[in-house]
């Protein structure tokens, strides 16, 4: 990663009349990083992203994107970034390939429409009217349009919302490819698993402020939530005196006596001790699961809200 951040934000503020949508946030994004912005609706993430894209003026603070001030150098900035917005449309009678050629003509540099169509699996649909495309195909076209100027920085605003799981996986794969190509991606999403899978770092925004920032793993580790170990054994443990395993906070035995749930603050250590105990007791293990606190748990803990609120 280079020293100079691709995005630098310092005390960024945005107000709409008397409503403060963004209340002094700071962050920096390095080249090649996939940076996630998580937050419930109205948290200020779309305002933040749109300020950085040069679509809205900021009320206060500093912002530099690819070395450009998004307020003062909008055209130069827009020429260099790729944007996939929520809820955009194209004219119903435009053909897929035509749309890429049209939008490509707006930039000083553009990628061949054929190349993009093949990459986004839209080549077969190149002569189809926009109105005939499925939701997934329209979203793939929106992503192709975001790539039409071969940008080194992409803003993807909820690129998979409302799509079926298969299309979501395809889009995840594309974002991973973009990351492998060392492009920088700023991603907003409602899907926690998407952020966990794709983002190098995540900022959780609530009420216009960043309440936590770090890698998904760092955020999970900061959580006060407990990890949960689920074990299923072959013979019932009813009547067996269960030991106090190291770091275990709570232990519950299911009604059938075979399902054991142990909560732990250091799950690796606890799990190791449980396995040792089972082996010593000659109890056969059938299944074991370790569930760490998810980013969703962290999110709820920090904001008191569900991500899709």
């Amino acid at each position: 990663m280079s020293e100079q951040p691709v995005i630098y934000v310092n005390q960024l503020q945005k107000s709409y009349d008397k409503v403060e949508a963004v209340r002094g946030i700071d962050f920096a994004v390095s080249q090649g990083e996939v940076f996630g912005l998580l937050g419930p609706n109205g948290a200020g993430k779309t305002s933040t992203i749109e300020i950085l894209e040069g679509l809205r003026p900021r009320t206060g603070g500093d912002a530099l994107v690819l070395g450009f001030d998004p307020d003062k150098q909008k055209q130069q900035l827009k020429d260099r970034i790729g944007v996939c917005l929520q809820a955009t449309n194209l004219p119903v009678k435009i053909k897929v390939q035509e749309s890429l050629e049209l939008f490509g003509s707006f930039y000083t540099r553009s990628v061949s429409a054929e190349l993009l169509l093949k990459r986004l699996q839209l080549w077969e649909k190149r002569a189809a009217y926009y109105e005939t495309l499925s939701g997934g195909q329209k979203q793939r076209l929106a992503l192709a349009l975001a790539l039409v100027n071969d940008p080194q920085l992409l803003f993807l605003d909820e690129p998979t919302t409302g799509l079926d799981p298969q299309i979501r996986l395809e889009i995840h794969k594309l974002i991973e490819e973009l990351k492998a190509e060392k492009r920088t991606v700023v991603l907003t999403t409602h899907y926690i698993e998407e952020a966990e899978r794709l983002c190098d770092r995540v900022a959780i925004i609530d009420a216009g402020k960043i309440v936590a920032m770090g890698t998904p793993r760092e955020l999970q580790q900061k959580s006060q939530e407990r990890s949960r170990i689920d074990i299923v054994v072959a013979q019932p443990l009813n009547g067996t005196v269960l030991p106090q395993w190291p770091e275990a906070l709570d232990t519950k035995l299911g009604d059938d006596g075979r399902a054991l749930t142990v909560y732990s603050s250091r799950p690796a250590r606890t799990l190791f001790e449980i396995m040792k105990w089972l082996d010593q007791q000659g109890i056969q293990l059938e299944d074991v699961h370790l569930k760490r606190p998810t980013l969703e748990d962290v999110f709820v803990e920090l904001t008191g809200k569900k991500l899709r609120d």
Partner: protein
Amino acid sequence: MKPYLAIIAMDIKLALRLRAVIFFNYLFPLIFFFTFATLLHRSADDMVFVVTMSVTLGVLGSGFFGAGIRAIQERELNILRRYKVTPISPTPILVGSMVTGWAIFIPYIVLLLLTAHFLYKMPLPTHFFGLLLFISLGLIAFRALGLVIASVANTMQEGTILVQLFYFPMLLLSGATFPADKFPKIMTIIHNFVPATYLVKGMQNILLKGQGLGTKENLLAVIVMVVTTISGGLIATKLFRWEKEEKIRGSAKLWVLAVLLPFFAMGIWNWIHLK
């Protein structure tokens, strides 16, 4: 220049793919033309009235519905939002709308004049290209007005009300659908303040009196239409909004009246002369 050419080429393609565009630009005015021509083709003067009516109907439809309502529709459907993230300004989009409207409409004018000449014996105008130029200026001026309406309307409902407020009075009071010489005095005064009046009068002067664009009356109409195009274009660019969420204050609607000021000036000038 590349974005301008790309947008114009695409707008023309898209317009030709839409049945509504073909219907409102060609079939609808032609239906009026044939209906009234069949009823009124007793003399060349009657045919000029019919041709003028058909052209005015097309110009106003192209300006208010083709440019104005379509621009609101594109904003409401989040189509303009996609353009907003690119490096282009509103100017190529607005220029594209004007040029496309013109390119789609001019073949209809030629078709109409030739049909009136060959089927209904209307003499071809002495200043054929002068007439085409005059109609072109009128068309672009009214498209500019339509784009200003689109810029100041916050919703499709507001836009439709504004368009109807201008479209029908212009159609009925300009002399395009009822002969202005049969208007009562008060209507004649109002008639002079209606922008479309100058389009109708200019066409009648060229078709009936064989005038060119150089006469005082026609030249004034040309100047007024050019001023309207320039001021309308500038105001539409200034007030252009890419997204339906970007609302404009209610008082901004006064800009529509500002664009019409040259026509009001003409109205006052004519009113004084009428007295």
